[in-house]
């Protein structure tokens, strides 16, 4: 498989370990990619609050670039996925609007015809590679490791733009992946709730309560780690966990929040360093040691 690769701002900024671990895993799987270095940020839904059309134009520009290459787009971020899917949904069902958007792209010689699909790495692994084939690349089963899923709002809503009906496996993609690596799913109601990141700078007290509730609940249920396809959720749930846990629950940050390719990399036997697990704010040591103590497949 080959993709037009759109890593997103955060994987290239505040969460570099996501970019590195994704590349490592993609290489192991033989996934080819061309990085869309000329593309703009999706706007993350924030830019859209000020100017929805501007956001759509920026995203359609990216879709048109991938379309010219004849490749589907691969993202690493729930928010990129959601914002792009919504923009794609809007222009695909409204040819007049698409024509208007295309007018702005003409200066660059771009025209979007509406054929680009956008897939998060998590979905691509399940839909394009297949979990059975993925399992063949694993060198150890993460037996006995308890993993709490945390989706990020934009990977689960709105379901029409995200094409859940056409792709029913998307609804339980994280749980399915956790089971594929041999882990146990630590299920909890907060898994599809907000992580608090969008209001971090607007209402920090509320944001901290969300971080403390989600990480604290998952920990109380016995999770060794939380797994998320969203680096924005990661920034808040990992970076602000020490502050949130202290402020809201009066306890310590003890739940590592890992990225999807880091989970797969662990099952592939990759090193802590190759996966950037030492770059987390909440220490991943205990979890990594537990994984490394598991038998290697022969």
């Amino acid at each position, binding site marked *: 498989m080959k993709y037009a690769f759109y890593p997103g*701002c*955060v994987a*290239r*900024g*505040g*969460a*570099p*370990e996501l970019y590195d671990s994704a590349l490592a895993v993609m290489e192991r799987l033989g996934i080819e990619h061309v990085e869309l*270095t*000329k*593309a*703009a*940020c999706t*706007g*993350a*839904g*924030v*830019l*859209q*609050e*000020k*100017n929805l*059309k*501007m956001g759509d*134009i*920026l995203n359609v*520009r990216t879709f048109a670039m991938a379309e010219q290459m004849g490749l589907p787009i691969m993202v690493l971020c729930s928010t990129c996925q959601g914002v792009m899917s919504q923009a794609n949904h809007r222009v695909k069902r409204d040819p007049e609007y698409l024509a208007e958007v295309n007018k*702005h*792209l003409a*200066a*660059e010689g771009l025209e979007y015809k509406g054929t680009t699909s956008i897939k998060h790495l998590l979905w691509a692994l399940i839909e394009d590679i297949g979990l059975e084939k993925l399992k063949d690349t694993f060198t150890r089963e993460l037996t006995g490791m308890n993993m709490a899923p945390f989706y990020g*709002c*934009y990977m689960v*809503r*709105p*379901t029409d733009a995200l094409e859940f009906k056409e792709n029913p496996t998307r609804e339980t993609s994280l749980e399915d992946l956790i089971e594929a690596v041999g882990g146990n799913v630590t299920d909890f*109601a907060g898994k599809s*709730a*907000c992580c*608090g990141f*969008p*209001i971090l*700078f*607007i*209402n*920090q*007290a*509320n944001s901290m*309560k*969300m971080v403390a*509730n989600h990480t604290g609940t998952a920990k109380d249920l016995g999770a060794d780690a939380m797994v998320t396809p969203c680096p924005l959720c990661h920034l808040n749930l990992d*970076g*602000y966990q*020490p*502050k949130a846990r202290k402020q809201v629950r009066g306890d310590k940050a003890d739940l590592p929040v890992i990225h999807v390719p880091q989970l797969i990399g662990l099952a592939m036997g990759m090193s802590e360093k190759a996966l950037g697990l*030492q*770059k*987390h*704010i909440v220490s991943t040591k205990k979890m990594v040691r537990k994984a490394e103590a598991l038998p290697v497949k022969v």
Partner: protein
Amino acid sequence: MPETTQATINVKLKVKRFDPADAGGKTWWQEYEVDIHPDSTVLDSLIEVREQEDGTLAMRCACRASICGSCGMKVNGSAKLVCKTRVVDVAPNGEQLIIEPMGNQHVVKDLVVSLDTFFNQINRVTPYLQPSFVPEQGEYTASNESMENLLTSMNCIMCGCCVSDCTVLEVDSNFIGPAALAKAWRFTEDPRDSKRDERLKALNDEDGGMWDCTRCMKCVDVCPKGVAPMDRIMELREAAIEAGNTNTSGYHHTESFYNSVKKNGRLDETRLALDSAGWTNIPRLLDLVPIGIAAMRKGKLPPVIPHKAEDHKKIKNLYESVEGESK
């Protein structure tokens, strides 16, 4: 009507019960099983339980046609009008259904919640028209177009599903909530209303107002009537900014994001944090220091001078062409 191949289906329900006069005020789970017509709704099965199995089960319902808004409750963790929810759609293989009262609202008994939370929120937005003039004769009239624009919000039947599943209300009962904000939008967009600016300013300035929404889209997902409250909240924000309300962190956040992409083609995370805190807000800036240091120690502080997208000049041109058009 096509003939059904099955006379009845078996519905398994696990219902969260609560009786303030019983069980020491504690909640408990009770399981039921009923056989009903295959086309039945979840409400039909609950009524069957109440009429045939357990008359003590309390619930609220009336129209059975998703217009009265009485039967909101949680099915498998998500708020729904149960009269609009067919059993086969939520339990296609006869799975057990988990039924709970709506969230974020006081439970009176079993599946019945108090309407006080909901209407206290609605009342905070002065939920009636405040026209600027009294017509000399006849009704206040408005054009069809202007009313059609309001249809999304006017479809609200006040069932409370959006309030039930709001992820902000879960942590902050002072948040005004999705239903009230959608209702406020209905008046700010009504050409007959004379208090648009006052309404926008109040919801912009108020603690728990329009900027506290996290954009999680739960309300859009659960609303049975297509009101899409979060979309209305985003329109309120846009209108508030246009009306000159630039005193919030939310405004600075949006503005910084917009300008960051304009300048660099991508997000400048460090600048966004500083802009949102406010450059003269010393306590807020100091608050960013520990996380900055922690990130630096782990070798992941976002670059202070941002990387630019290769095509950042073209992206800037695009911005200018779009902005020039809307002027």
